[in-house]
């Protein structure tokens, strides 16, 4: 049980680094210059990427932090307040990535990269009924069918990425091939719970078509009304959960001023087959009340037996089948304009696909070179149906060492309870072998 709670806590609170919109405007951080993002060609023959941490949280309508409350000196999540603001459709997408090491090597117009990342993610889509019914009860749904829907995909995996890119004339193309190794996962394949409350005397009909898959998580045994969680130690090592993913990108340098980019990221998935459990419940239950004629005319009714039979019908069947989950792909388009040696401007449009949900985003940015050590920039983005996204970024270069930090939602750093999106990344790089790229290529680009 403890392991399960730890695992659940980890999955529910961690975030994974989404592709930060700002990152598409930072041309001088080789850590971002993966071959799939070839608009940023490495300026050094060898770049060593030191630990980089990224996190991303996107939620709609608001993040859960907005509903924290104090009770008896403790912080609690006020579900009632959350349910009061819930919309017809809601989601929470968290991603978190730790990239401890990576390397990029460039030779003339050809370059290779290799890197490792540890990634966690949580995608949770839920509708109004999925929150309202558990929190406020079914009384508001008398005479209606409450369609409870929650789509979950949460997990963690190792990501070993190998990339290669090539520049010819004004075009550069690149690709990353990721080997993915799943650590743990919990996801829904079927998520239908329909609860109908009749207006007559509130007769209940519960129709379920549920399938929850887990891998490398403790098995949950549901027997009647008893729930038991088997002990299992969490393992973060490599497993038999193999997967692949592909990133593709192409850049067109029109002239010294303009560069255009298009790319696709995270096309792929993981085939989970290590220690899997599939919990399936497909039933249609009706509870119309107790027939008291049996009591009046001599028979006895055991409420416990009714509950037991009800629970037995709800009991999921557990199988051990392998299953597949897909990553959440993203398409990006960007344009950069090199105004002069001090100022650069850029624009980015991106589309993230989470399960069946498509979240578009656009951003505008500007960057200013203060001196040979520091550059600062700012972005303004419209994303997740909100326009209050102001980003800041900074890079510092001292010899071969580069430090960077960026966020496209810096405002939310200071108002967590109101923001519904937060992205941040920070890390360090070591550069060796300056290729004086500014002299090789026809300009300086984002």
């Amino acid at each position, binding site marked *: 049980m403890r392991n399960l709670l730890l695992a659940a806590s980890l999955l529910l*609170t961690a*975030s994974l680094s989404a592709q930060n919109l700002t990152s598409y405007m930072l041309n001088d951080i080789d850590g971002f210059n993966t071959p799939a993002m070839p608009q940023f060609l490495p300026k050094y023959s060898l770049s060593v990427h*030191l*630990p980089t*941490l990224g*996190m991303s*949280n996107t939620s709609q309508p608001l*993040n859960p*932090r907005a509903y*924290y*409350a104090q*009770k008896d000196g*403790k*912080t*609690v*999540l*006020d*579900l*009632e*307040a959350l349910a009061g603001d819930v919309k017809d459709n809601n989601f929470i997408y968290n991603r978190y990535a730790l990239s401890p090491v990576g390397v990029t090597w460039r030779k003339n117009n050809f370059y290779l990269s290799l890197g490792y990342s540890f990634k966690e993610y949580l995608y949770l889509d839920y509708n109004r009924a999925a929150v309202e019914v558990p*929190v*406020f*009860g*079914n*009384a*508001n749904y*008398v005479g209606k069918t409450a369609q409870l829907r929650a789509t979950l995909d949460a997990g963690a995996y190792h990501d070993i990425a190998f990339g290669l890119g090539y520049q010819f004339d004004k075009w550069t193309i690149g690709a990353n091939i990721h080997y993915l190794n799943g650590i743990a996962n919990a996801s829904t394949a079927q998520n239908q719970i329909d609860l109908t*409350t*009749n207006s*007559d*005397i*509130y*007769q*209940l009909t519960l129709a379920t078509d549920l399938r929850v898959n887990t891998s490398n998580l403790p098995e949950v045994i549901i027997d009647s009304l008893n729930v038991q969680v088997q002990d299992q130690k969490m393992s973060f090592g490599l497993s038999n959960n193999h997967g692949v993913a592909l990133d593709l990108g192409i850049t067109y340098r029109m002239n010294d001023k303009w560069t255009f980019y298009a790319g696709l990221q995270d096309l792929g998935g993981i085939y989970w087959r290590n220690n899997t459990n599939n919990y399936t419940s497909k039933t249609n239950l009706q*509870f*119309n*009340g*107790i*027939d*008291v*004629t049996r009591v*009046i*005319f001599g028979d006895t009714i055991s409420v416990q037996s009714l509950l037991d039979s009800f629970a037995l019908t709800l009991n999921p069947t557990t199988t051990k089948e392998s299953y597949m989950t897909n990553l959440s792909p993203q398409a990006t388009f960007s344009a950069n304009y090199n105004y002069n040696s001090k100022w650069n401007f850029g624009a980015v449009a991106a589309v993230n696909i989470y399960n069946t949900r498509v979240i578009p985003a656009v951003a505008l940015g500007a960057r200013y070179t203060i001196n040979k050590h520091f550059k600062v920039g700012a972005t303004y983005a419209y994303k997740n149906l909100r326009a209050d996204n102001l980003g800041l970024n900074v890079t*510092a270069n*001292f*010899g*071969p*060492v580069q*430090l960077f*930090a960026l966020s496209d939602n810096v405002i*939310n*750093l200071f108002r*967590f309870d109101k923001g519904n999106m*937060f992205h*941040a990344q*920070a*890390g*360090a790089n070591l550069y060796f072998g300056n290729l004086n790229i500014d002299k090789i290529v026809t300009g300086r680009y984002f």
Partner: protein
Amino acid sequence: MKNTQSNLLLALVLVSILFSSCSKTFFGDVNGIESGNSQDVAFPLVNSRFTSRDLLLGLNNLTTVEALPPDGRLVLVFNQPNVFSRNASDAVNLPLPTFNVTDTLTNLSAASLAITELRLNNGQLYYDFISPVTEDINVQMQLIGGTYTTTGAPLKVNLNFPYTGSTHFTGSISLANTRVLTSGFGGLQFRYDARKVSDNTRLTLSPFSLSFQSLDYTYAQGGLLVFTYPVPLDTIQFDAFRTLRGGELYLENPSIELKIQNTIGLPIGIKLDSLLVRDKLGNVTLMTGSYVNQVVPINYPSLSEIGVRKTTTMVFDNSNTNISQAITGLPQEIYYTGDVASTGLGQGHVTDSSYISIDVAMRLPFRCWSRNLLIVDTFDVDLTPFTDYRFFEFKTATENRVPADVYGQIYFTGDDLVPFDSLFVGDDRVFVSPPVDANGRASTSMYKSISTRFEGARKLDVQSRTTHIIVQGKATSLNNGNTIVELYDDNDFYYRLGLKVGL
């Protein structure tokens, strides 16, 4: 280089602190989940369908309900079997005459034995005589005139009577497994042959008497004894409406049926001296009309129908009694007294398994009207589970295809059973009577729903003071009981109860 490394390390630490801080602040330390207190849950409690048959059966578990073809009109039938019974051994006695043996060959039938056939399991033939000599004698005794033993041989015994100082001798001859058949053999005769043991000189015994004693028969035929058995004052506990506390019920054609079953082959009659009906309120109505204070002959099997059960049915209905008047007050008990007696000369037959019994059946066809039929019951309840609820709301829904309005109420009381609150305002009509067709049959179903919400001070009052509830229902047939209605097998009603609570 060392400086660069230090700066790098410092930068990493700062970045880590920044992110861990951001992460912690953003996601926070959540110690729990507060679900609030505004959860309103609605669920069904009771959902029952009752048929008219269920309802009538529920009135008394000794009742049966018949649905008459072809359309299923319902008749409540209360059966009380065997209110009176007698076996033949109790009912019929054989004559046990004493015979004077006047000669060595004496005709017994000519004396007083009118039985023409007797099959005995057991019995004794007692003899009593005086010997004329003061010495040992031998006596041969023999029944002549029919087949006497199971072997077909006449019953004949040889007895020795040693002289011991008295010439008076008594004793008995076993009649076990003996069949006495007199018809066709010239009657039953007794012959004896007495002789002195010393010289075989024949003797005449006088006086000499014979008697039949302790006869255990399997069959007897002929002139049997006339008998009369009084039926003592007894009570038939009908109480077909035991759950009703009062009200009026008019049944258009009720009847009480006495079914008399008889295998005794004798003319028998029954006479009911009185028949009274006592209702729920203790009122007693004397039933008058046919069958009362009259000897009613009972059917019996003839000699060619030995062992056949013959049935005699006496029906008390509106055609011959004032039964409708007696039933209107919800009958509870019927009192009766009378006699069951043989009639005529007692000629006939009887076996050891012959019997006579009386079953009573009250048949109440439910073509009727009713007014204020009252059902009241009290239940212990515990409403403390509602203590933590903000409110609770009961919703009652009914569908009624029985042609009667039912005004219901549930009273909340303490241990003193004095109501302090009620579920409905006034006596609410919980079940609404549907209209009826020309035959009095309900043609549709009527729906009614009532919601009652308890919250605030009222809810606190009810949940804290209630230890009992009194459930009361008053049923009045359509049009305030002014229309004759009829119950059919397909008349039913639904009672449903739902509960909405604020957690």
